[in-house]
């Protein structure tokens, strides 16, 4: 299936806010090299770091190790092309991949988040890890909207691949986020994003895009 513009370039983009100004972020498949670079960019959290920071570091490291384990077994991919090839070879395959969210900070493309997903045997998307980069937690940069924007990026990926359901295990920490994101209460240990939720997520991002267009006069991301 031919993919439209951005998606064909392995770039699922969305709007976030950096230091109070609208900015563009991109979600793309991570290669092994990029994953290693991302891993190296995580400074070890000191003992007096907040639990949030420690979780950000730990979850990212664990997601990367899990991906490498599955990659060694030939069950992980590094690009959209590889994913599509895997699907063409076996439509019931279970394949893992990592997506990195980046944005431009001080003129450089900088990673700000990591997502570990699995395309399941019945063509759904399971979201296993969603972790912001610790630099988004520092006071140097006020970066907002990466979590909800990343889920929007996943919705775009799902649409591009004809995937009708994104799901995952919710915890006591993530359930409130998904309740607000999806407009559903209560969310217990499972969240499901299907057509209606995808439409709401896209509508919300479209509003930001229109606002960016109206204020800057520059073309916004759809």
């Amino acid at each position, binding site marked *: 299936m031919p993919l439209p513009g951005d998606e064909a370039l392995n770039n699922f983009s969305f709007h976030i806010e950096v230091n109070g100004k609208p900015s563009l972020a991109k979600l793309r498949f991570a290669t092994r090299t990029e994953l290693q670079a991302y891993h190296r960019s995580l400074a070890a959290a000191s003992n007096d770091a907040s639990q949030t920071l420690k979780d950000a570091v730990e979850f990212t490291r664990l997601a990367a*190790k*899990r991906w490498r384990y599955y990659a060694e077994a030939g069950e992980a991919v590094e690009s959209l092309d590889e994913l599509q090839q895997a699907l063409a070879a076996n439509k019931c395959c279970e394949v893992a991949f990592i997506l990195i969210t980046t944005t431009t900070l001080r003129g450089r493309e900088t990673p700000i988040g990591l997502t570990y997903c699995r395309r399941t045997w019945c063509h759904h998307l399971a979201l296993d*890890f969603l972790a912001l980069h610790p630099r988004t937690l520092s006071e140097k940069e006020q970066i907002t909207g990466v979590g909800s924007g990343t889920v929007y990026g996943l919705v775009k990926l799902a649409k591009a691949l004809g995937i009708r359901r994104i799901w995952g*295990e919710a915890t006591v920490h993530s359930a409130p*986020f998904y309740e607000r994101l999806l407009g559903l209460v209560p969310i217990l240990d499972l969240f499901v994003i299907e057509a209606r939720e995808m439409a709401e997520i896209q509508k*919300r991002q479209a*509003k930001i895009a229109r606002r960016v267009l109206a204020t800057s006069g520059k073309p916004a991301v759809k």
Partner: protein
Amino acid sequence: MTQKRTKPLSIEQLWAYEAKHPAIFAAPRALAEARLIVDLGRSQRSRRHATTAKRSLKRGELVVK
């Protein structure tokens, strides 16, 4: 338990929530599996080191105090 739909949050409301509650989440099963993979790697490495040390000891390369 049935779910109810709530009024969708505006992007400002959602971002205000995210600013206070950063999205750092892991599915419990995925987390447990990843930790197991790390432990497996560690025990394989320590077995390899133990085997290497044993061989070196036999060859008289190691002095154990």
